[in-house]
């Protein structure tokens, strides 16, 4: 049937073209709507974005070279020239903290990705296949969980030695049980749904099932864990390098900057105050954002 054109219809079409397209309502847009309504979550997102920008543009922001030792200006209190003061080697603490953002965020990201690829994968396998695979994997994870996370990480670093790859490995192993458990739960919730059952009925292969049907549907919950774990790994990393395990000087990681200032706590508290503030702000922001994501993706969990 040919399309009929009448003046009235053209008018309607023109009007429709002017109107905004109806917003498609997908789970993602719904989640984003819920996330937008949450002021604390937005604040967290905002701070995280600033931190990422600071990490990217660190060389442009930092006024001094973070490694340069200037013996003419040692242990100076915060001033206009040295915003956060200088340390015992005359290094500008502001620059060190700015570059520390880069180190802390990137290493935390590595740790989290590694944790997801080890523990997360195990959890997905356990959740998807169930049965014996599930029992074996989860029993092993129970064993790993009997050792407190940070103690496990420290033991591994103690054995492997200090350094970024060693630290990533340590955090990965230590977080394996938590990661496996949460990813398993995420998969299990999807596993019971009707669409998985129907895909199974029409004969979708297992790999395709996991990659195409289950992970996309579980990804919301996994993002929550991902963001949450970024904060956890920043916490663990800074705590470990503060007590001298994990990374070694002169990396400008926040925990290590704190470690540098440890001896001067009474005489020059500013040396520790600013890096401590940065750790606090970062961890809090990531947690606020993670909490907001949880409420957004999964209102039932609240």
């Amino acid at each position, binding site marked *: 049937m040919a399309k009929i054109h009448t003046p009235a219809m053209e008018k309607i079409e023109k009007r429709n073209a002017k109107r905004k397209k109806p917003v498609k309502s997908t789970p993602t847009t719904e989640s984003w709507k819920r996330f937008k309504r949450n002021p604390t979550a937005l604040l967290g997102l905002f701070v995280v974005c600033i931190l990422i920008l600071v990490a990217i543009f660190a060389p442009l922001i930092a006024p001094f070279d973070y490694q340069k030792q200037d013996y003419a200006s040692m242990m100076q209190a915060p001033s206009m020239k040295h915003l956060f003061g200088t340390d015992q080697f005359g290094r500008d603490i502001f620059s060190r903290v700015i570059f520390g953002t880069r180190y802390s965020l990137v290493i935390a990201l590595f740790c989290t990705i590694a944790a997801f690829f080890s523990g997360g994968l195990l959890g997905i396998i356990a959740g998807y296949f169930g049965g014996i695979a599930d029992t074996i994997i989860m029993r092993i994870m129970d*064993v790993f969980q009997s050792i407190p996370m940070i103690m496990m990480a420290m033991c591994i670093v103690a054995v492997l030695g200090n350094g970024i790859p060693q630290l990533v490995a340590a955090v990965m192993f230590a977080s394996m049980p938590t990661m496996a458990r949460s990813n398993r739960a995420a998969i299990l919730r999807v596993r019971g749904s009707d669409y998985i059952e129907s895909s199974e009925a029409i004969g979708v292969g297992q790999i395709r099932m996991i990659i195409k049907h289950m992970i996309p549907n579980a990804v919301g919950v996994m993002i929550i864990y991902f963001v949450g774990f970024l904060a956890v790994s920043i916490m663990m990393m*800074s*705590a470990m390098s503060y007590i001298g395990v994990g990374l070694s000087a002169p990396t400008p990681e926040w925990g290590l900057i704190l470690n540098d200032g440890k001896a001067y706590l009474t005489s020059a508290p500013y040396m520790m105050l600013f890096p401590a503030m940065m750790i*606090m702000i970062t961890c809090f922001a990531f947690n606020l954002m993670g909490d907001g994501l949880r409420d957004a993706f999964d209102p039932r969990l609240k």
Partner: protein
Amino acid sequence: MLKYILKRILYLIPILIGVSAIIFALKTVTPGDPARQILGNDATEEQVQEKRDELGLNDPVLVQYVNYVGGIVTRGDFGDSYRTGEPILTEILPRLLTSAKITLGAVMIGAIIGVLLGIISALKKYTWIDSVVLVISMFFQSVPEFVVALVLIMILAVKLHLLPATGITTWQGYIMPMLCIGLSAVAGYTRITRSSMLEVLGEDYIRTARAKGQSEKNITYHHALRNAMIPVAQSLGSNIGNAIGGGMVLETVFGVPGVGKYIVDAITQRNYPGVLGGALIIAIILTLINMIVDISFVLIDPRLKTTIISGGAKKMPKKMKAA
């Protein structure tokens, strides 16, 4: 009931075997030769070889592992410190008490504050009080304990001279470490208390109590709170684990001579038997505590047997349906 308890105790065996296997695996990959460590650098190659034979380091790995576990079970032998040559166990035992005091104090502080805040936010749900409580408790959860500790030291010890910055020679020395670990756990308790309070307040027996004309105060504290406390109490076990982990770092920050500080010192001194022996002792204690917590709550409230066995609670054996 007895069957459940026996099962729970039997469940310890694979866990302990697994934990000792992890520690043993770490032990085998430690750098350096233990024989050389004990004899010092002056020893000849033959002496070192002899010592290696004596220590059983030339045996197959499996034999070494069996001997390792055997030594722990029969003689309580967790290895000797590279630093002093003393057995790890005798070095750690006196420190355990200090760590236990701090851990218990911290768990208590965290639980009391957390439960109180949880009740408040459950009763004032969806008001600004609820949100403020949530944000504050989340702040302490999301910020590393040692950073809170440092800020507290700066304020309370350095600026105001109220409390000693380090050491536990006086009782005031305990306050800050306990407070720092406790505060970080508050959010967890608040959240569990809040959600379980809200759940319980919707139960039929609460409606019945209301219908009977019970005062709202009575309902909250006698009917609701008691039942709402069950999940909170169940989380105690895993919280003790977190508190011990947090204690490791904080004992170092505050210079408290506990197990955590021992392990951290051992790491910096490359005293590997100290690190791994200490970690194993902590893991064993933690596993036992978890078992005792599980069993005692089942004894208190037999309804829990079903939730624990069917995997209703976190950190509980999930595949024990056969019981």
